[in-house]
């Protein structure tokens, strides 16, 4: 997990302020010209604080504004006001398009890629084991210290291990280190570039970049405009939501606040998780091992993208079952055909899932908890001051526990045990790199008969890039909220139709 996850830095602050500004303009139905003022309101100092100049700082904020609206970040090479491009976009497609996760190229500080360096801890010792153990003769002892020839070095790490002074460090690009599928490469100027053929849009690099050079696109503006137009917008909220808006804000208050914002209804996505766990238990019981050797879960879109892009041979064994998001959205639209559904969650790649052909009629908007918190600020809704409390009770214990690593497999396993008297071996992949490794194992045939859970974010959905809370705290809240459910198993949930159980 990136070291920056859960730490509030100025990067996080600027990102959230941009969201709040965009939400504010949407709520006010402001004119396009107003967008031009955002970079000046956010960077309101006289001199640069973070970069070489305030002009660059503001240009980067402008890029964030564009992406916050769902546009490509690129500033044209010709002179053009921010608002002009925005006007074109809003009047024409007004729709988020791939690629979802982007490096803002002029914000990238070109960190050196994976390399070993000698720090000034080096005492130029007599033994200098670093140079002796090097298999490619890349370490020489120069006037003041050992020096590693980067041309020769193969990054085996032997010198680092041998040094008695801990003088050698292994340095990785934080974005590339966070990317477990190797999607981050370098462009001709040595800036990070995302290879879209490999990227699974999990968003971990957004959190990991210490210069805030990577961002995803958002649908905040389009969602709020839809509410402003008086459309029937209904929210489905992912199981990791508990506690994300402060320790004093109960689930009931979050629901009340969403209604105050204009949502006609709020349902738990965990309801969809109950559907999904029952459906996947049924698939497993029917097909494994006769029809397929093992079953991978379907709820994490990045996990399924890893199969698509990196290990396509195993794709057919990842469940085709709809994700909890889709089931929850369908259950809302069943009764309200003209409504729009917004999925609120911790997840970046759900934005992409919602754009897919299969899902775009079910889910109209996807926003993160972080984006929602900024919307609350813009709408001047302070959740601790919301008087009303609205009950929310849509899901079982195991459905609510979907948000924690291991929760998905456990829910399916419980259904298998109770309904089919099957207790399958379980493999859990936690984090991007682990997901890829697990799929490679599956391909090699060593996971026959297994139920395989894949979570691209470490710790599960509570570790998602769209959360406000540290992962371990989010996990505790999820468990506590799950304990409060009146139903233990998915098939005990009264909200499901008998035929689904």
């Amino acid at each position, binding site marked *: 997990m990136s070291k920056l996850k859960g730490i*509030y830095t100025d990067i996080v602050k600027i990102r959230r*302020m941009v969201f709040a500004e965009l939400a504010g303009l949407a709520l006010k139905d402001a004119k396009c010209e107003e967008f031009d003022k955002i970079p000046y309101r956010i960077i309101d100092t006289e001199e640069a604080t973070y970069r070489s100049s305030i002009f660059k700082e503001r240009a980067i904020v402008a890029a964030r504004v564009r992406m916050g609206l769902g546009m490509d970040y690129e500033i044209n090479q010709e002179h053009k006001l921010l608002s002009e491009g925005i006007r074109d976009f809003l009047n024409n497609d007004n729709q988020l398009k791939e690629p979802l996760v982007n490096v803002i190229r002029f914000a990238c500080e070109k960190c050196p890629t994976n390399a070993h360096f000698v720090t000034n801890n080096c005492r130029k010792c007599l033994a200098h084991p670093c140079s002796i153990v090097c298999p490619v003769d890349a370490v020489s002892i120069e006037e003041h210290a050992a020096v590693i020839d980067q041309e020769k070095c193969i990054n085996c790490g032997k010198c680092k291990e041998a040094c008695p002074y801990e003088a050698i460090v292994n340095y990785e690009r934080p974005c590339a280190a966070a990317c477990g599928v190797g999607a981050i490469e370098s462009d001709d100027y040595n800036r990070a570039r995302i290879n879209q053929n490999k990227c699974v849009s999990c968003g971990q690099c957004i959190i990991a970049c210490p210069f805030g050079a990577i961002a995803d696109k958002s649908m905040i503006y389009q969602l709020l405009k839809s509410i402003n137009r008086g459309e029937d917008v209904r929210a489905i909220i992912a199981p990791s939501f508990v506690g994300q808006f402060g320790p*004093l804000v109960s689930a009931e208050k979050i629901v009340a606040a969403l209604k105050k914002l204009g949502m006609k209804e709020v349902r738990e996505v965990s309801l969809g998780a109950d559907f999904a766990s029952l459906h996947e238990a049924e698939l497993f019981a029917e097909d494994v091992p006769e029809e397929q050797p093992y079953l991978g879960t379907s709820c994490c879109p990045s996990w399924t993208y890893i199969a698509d892009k990196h290990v396509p041979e195993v794709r057919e064994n990842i469940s085709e079952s709809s994700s909890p998001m889709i089931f929850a959205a369908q259950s809302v639209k069943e009764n309200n055909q003209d409504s729009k559904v917004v999925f609120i969650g911790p997840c970046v790649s759900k934005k992409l899932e919602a754009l897919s052909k299969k899902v775009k009629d079910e889910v109209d908007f996807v926003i993160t908890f972080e984006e929602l*918190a900024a919307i609350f*600020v813009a709408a001047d*809704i*302070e959740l*601790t*001051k919301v008087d009303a409390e609205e009950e929310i009770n849509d899901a079982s214990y195991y459905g609510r526990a979907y948000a924690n690593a291991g929760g998905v497999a456990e829910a399916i396993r419980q259904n298998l045990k109770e309904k089919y008297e099957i207790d399958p071996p379980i493999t859990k992949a936690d984090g991007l790199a682990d997901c890829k490794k697990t799929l490679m194992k599956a391909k090699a045939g060593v996971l026959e008969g297994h139920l395989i859970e894949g979570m691209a974010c470490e710790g599960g959905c509570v570790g998602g890039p769209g959360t406000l809370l540290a992962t371990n705290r989010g996990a505790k809240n999820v468990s506590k909220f799950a304990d409060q459910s009146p139903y233990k198993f998915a098939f005990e949930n009264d909200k499901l139709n008998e035929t689904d159980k």
Partner: protein
Amino acid sequence: MVKVKICAGSHCSLVGALNILETLEELQKEYPDQIQIERVECLDKCEDIKKAPVVKVDDELITSAQNQIVISKVMERIK
């Protein structure tokens, strides 16, 4: 005993209060008898989001609070 009141409202949570709370709770483990943390509802000082998060260390009100400032104020009083 240093009494710290930290706003746990949604405005302050957006701009870093959760992080300050977490750091304070870690610090409290080291000085269990000397720090008292109270999570309070909105202290009504964040009408401008730039003033959030809001923290009170004993009687001293800190707006636009940052981790390192809050911790140093607390440590000053412990020593």
